[in-house]
């Protein structure tokens, strides 16, 4: 009898998080190795139609838990539905994205079941029918491989550490409504409001390209040229701790050990020296470019390409050159 892999696919305002597609693909691969089926679980309000998008990622079945209360994250409600679903499916593996929601939700589920959880994984594989999870520790200065003592084996996957792959199958996965009811009295933390960060900023943890500024930027007004470069590249703008502590950029823009961990295809570090704690946050970027006038800056030891020069000369030139490339 085929086993089961359950994936919890996060959506917000009718759109799946990029991480949801990554988790679906990872779940598909694990299921193939286990000889199992993939069931996706989606929470929200009026999401049956959009949930069908997961078809493209090789899932075998889609469960939608629809509830007006689920228009926002409703922790105890989500946990209740997940536990009931796990009770029915008996999955060997349960996967979540390691987004803010996934990192809040997965430990609650694991706790209720009394099982282990591998968080923020950068790798998954199957060995002798068991899940082995790889994850960073000490801010990525080391990695550990974990095995689980019991089912379900639960993991949250670091955004962009896994690639989403479209994998159309013969027939569409059936979409089924979950019948677990949840009422307002069961929700202990309610969302009162959501304050959007201004103007369609690309989320750092989802960005393919990041342009990041550090102490060398000398002041907040100088970030304008990084924003211009980022706009041209379709990039997000990040900052080092020095720039954030100086009050030039908000903490939500900070990349590093006490900020965000990012894995873009391209990370351009401008006026950033490359302290260990900063490298912890961007060291897994596919390509790193460093622009710094200090030839001894540690960042050059990790950068794939570097220019040792004054960023105030280089960045405007880079903007012009990228404009040329686009034309």
């Amino acid at each position, binding site marked *: 009898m085929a086993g089961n892999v359950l994936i919890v696919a996060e959506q917000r305002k009718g759109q799946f998080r990029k991480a949801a597609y990554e988790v679906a693909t990872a779940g598909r691969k694990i299921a193939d190795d286990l000889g199992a089926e993939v069931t996706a679980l989606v929470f929200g309000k009026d999401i049956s139609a959009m949930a069908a998008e997961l078809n493209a990622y090789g899932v075998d079945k889609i469960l939608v838990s629809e509830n007006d209360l689920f228009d926002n994250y409703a922790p105890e409600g989500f946990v209740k539905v997940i536990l009931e679903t796990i009770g029915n499916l008996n999955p060997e593996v349960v996967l979540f994205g390691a987004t803010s929601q996934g990192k809040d939700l997965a430990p609650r589920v694991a706790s209720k079941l009394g099982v282990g959880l591998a968080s923020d994984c950068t790798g998954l594989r199957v060995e002798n029918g068991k899940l082995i999870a790889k994850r960073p520790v000490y801010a990525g200065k080391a*990695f550990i491989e974990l095995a689980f003592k019991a089912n379900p084996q639960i993991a949250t996957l670091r955004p962009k550490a896994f690639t989403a792959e479209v994998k159309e199958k013969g027939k569409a996965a059936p979409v089924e409504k979950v019948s677990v009811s949840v009422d307002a009295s069961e929700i202990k933390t309610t969302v009162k409001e959501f*304050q959007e960060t201004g103007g369609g900023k690309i989320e750092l943890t989802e960005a393919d390209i990041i342009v990041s500024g550090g102490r060398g930027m000398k002041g907040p007004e100088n970030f304008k040229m990084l924003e211009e470069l980022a706009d041209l590249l379709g990039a997000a703008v990040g900052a080092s701790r020095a720039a954030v502590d100086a009050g030039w950029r908000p903490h939500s823009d900070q990349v590093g050990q006490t900020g965000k961990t990012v894995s873009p295809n391209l990370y351009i570090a401008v006026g950033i020296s490359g302290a260990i704690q900063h490298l912890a946050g961007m060291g897994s970027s596919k390509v790193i470019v460093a622009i710094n006038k200090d030839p001894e800056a540690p960042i050059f030891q990790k950068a794939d390409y570097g220019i040792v020069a004054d960023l105030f000369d280089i960045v405007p030139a880079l903007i012009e050159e990228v404009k040329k490339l686009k034309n």
Partner: protein
Amino acid sequence: MKIVVCMKQVPDTETKVRIGSDGKTIDPTDVNYVVNPYDEYAIEEALRIKEATGEGEVTILTLGPDRAINAIRTALAMGADRAIHLKTDDTYLDSHAVATALANELKNMEYDLVLTGKQAVDDDAAQIGPRVAALLDIPCATIVTKLTIENGTFTANREVEGGVEVVEGALPAMITAQKGLNEPRYASLKGIMMAKRKPVEEKEPQLDEAKVEILKMEYPPERKGGRIVGKDVDAVPELVRLLHEEAKVI
């Protein structure tokens, strides 16, 4: 108000990590241990809440080996009133085991609020807050950058993708602290002296076994420096060409 802060002692973030002889944990030689930075925000928030209401008690709850007493003393020096040190030498505990130890102790305590950092900077698991809350069946808000306590309820700002999620719930509750929640104070000399006289209760933890097992620890793949493309603006066209044609990232 009775506030409990779950605090962990961890290697400081400057630590050069060397894998130990067991191949699964780090070599503790020459490691400098400190209060987990994210727990500092939790301790500071507890002290501010106590100071704002003019009364109450802040208890530090720590699971750890003998050396954890140093971190406990730091927390007491910041201004916490007392501490409970659950003593263990086990280096293979996972989040499940730790959460059961903390929750079982909390079940014997009176508390209005439990605070802890969003994650420990050694294992980076970020599980304790939500796990303990689930075991105690209390509300939980994670990655909090602003907290208000009023009339037995909390309002918390959570730093999430795309913005801030403002949540509310009733006390007693668990809150995990994110950087930006406050600016932690340094212990004063007076605080350090007074800390020596504050009670630290040593106890056996009641904990479950670990549910994940570390198979091995390894270093990340070596990321070697690449090339310096140039030292002035003339290097820019070449850089863009390389990124477009060689690296293919733009």
